[in-house]
């Protein structure tokens, strides 16, 4: 599996656009800046929705209304964030695919996605009974807290990708080398 992923990364690395992005000081850095700026939009909206569920913001306003009204802006932010994230990966595929932080980030992203789907489904199926309450029911508050925790993890591991403390050219324990997907230095 790690071999296959690394071969795919090598193929991406050899494409002209990958080299062009990484070698362009302004293009690469503006993509990264846009990736960070969209955190303000996507996670900013998400945090407000989660805080409302926990009863910490606008408790007098319908929770479902807040979730629905902020959803479009949040999704626009996430789309830009994912596009710029893919471009950042595309610019440095062989380094990133062997980063243990990147791998943890992907797992946390998957967790956040599944949690969001479950949260939305549960919120809509029970909305009528608690919508105007200052706090959402316990199972939805748990989902909101989990969402905040998972996204904090995504941001943290995303930032740590830049650090090579556990990269493959280091002397890593076998389990960590496997988890990082070490195939080449």
């Amino acid at each position, binding site marked *: 599996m790690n071999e296959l992923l690394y071969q795919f990364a090598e193929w991406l690395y050899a494409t002209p656009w990958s080299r062009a992005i990484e070698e362009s000081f302004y293009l690469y850095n503006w993509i990264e800046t846009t990736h960070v700026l969209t955190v303000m939009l996507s996670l900013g909206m998400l*945090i407000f929705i989660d805080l409302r569920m926990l009863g910490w913001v606008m408790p007098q306003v319908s929770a479902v209304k807040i979730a629905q*009204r902020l959803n479009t802006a949040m999704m626009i932010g996430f789309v830009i964030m994912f596009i710029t994230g893919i471009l950042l990966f595309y610019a440095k595929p062989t380094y990133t695919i062997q980063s243990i932080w990147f791998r943890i980030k992907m797992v946390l992203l998957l967790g956040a996605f599944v949690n969001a789907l479950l949260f939305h489904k549960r919120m809509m199926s029970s909305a009528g009974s608690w919508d105007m309450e200052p706090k959402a029911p316990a199972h939805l508050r748990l989902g909101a807290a989990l969402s905040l925790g998972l996204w904090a993890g995504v941001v943290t591991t995303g930032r740590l990708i830049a650090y090579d403390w556990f990269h493959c050219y280091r002397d890593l324990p076998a389990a960590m080398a496997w988890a990082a997907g070490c195939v080449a230095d």
Partner: protein
Amino acid sequence: MELLPLGFFEWAESSFLGYIGKTYGGIYATLGQSVHLISLAVLGGAVLVSDFRLLGWVLRDVPSEVVAEQAHKWFKIALFTIIASGVFMAAAIAIKLYYNSAYWAKMYALIAGVLFVFLVRRPLLRGDHSQINPWVLKLVAVASILVWVSVAATGRWIGFS
């Protein structure tokens, strides 16, 4: 133009905070950079929810006074955390920052943002919004978005300069 003398930055880097940040990379990256980014997300949410409401893009059926009041509470929390984590990060690389033009651009943008919020935006929005010219509200929202996006963008470019 630098706001503070080089001696201050030399002192900051040799301080206890500077020592912790320089010596322990993990603490610098998590308690410094990650907390800074997470706080940026909270600040971004507070600014954008409130400004998008003033622009009539979101929550049109919720009074803009309610949105502005609630968002400001979280803005203050986020701003405090951003400044605290920023001071910690800056102490570790203080001398390098003194010579970094993006750092000074961010400081000027941050000061402009804080002055704008507490001297213009907040006093204006504390009252009844129906008494304010809608174009003034929209202008305040656009200015607010521009200033805080500038703070975030110049902040990111510190690392590239």
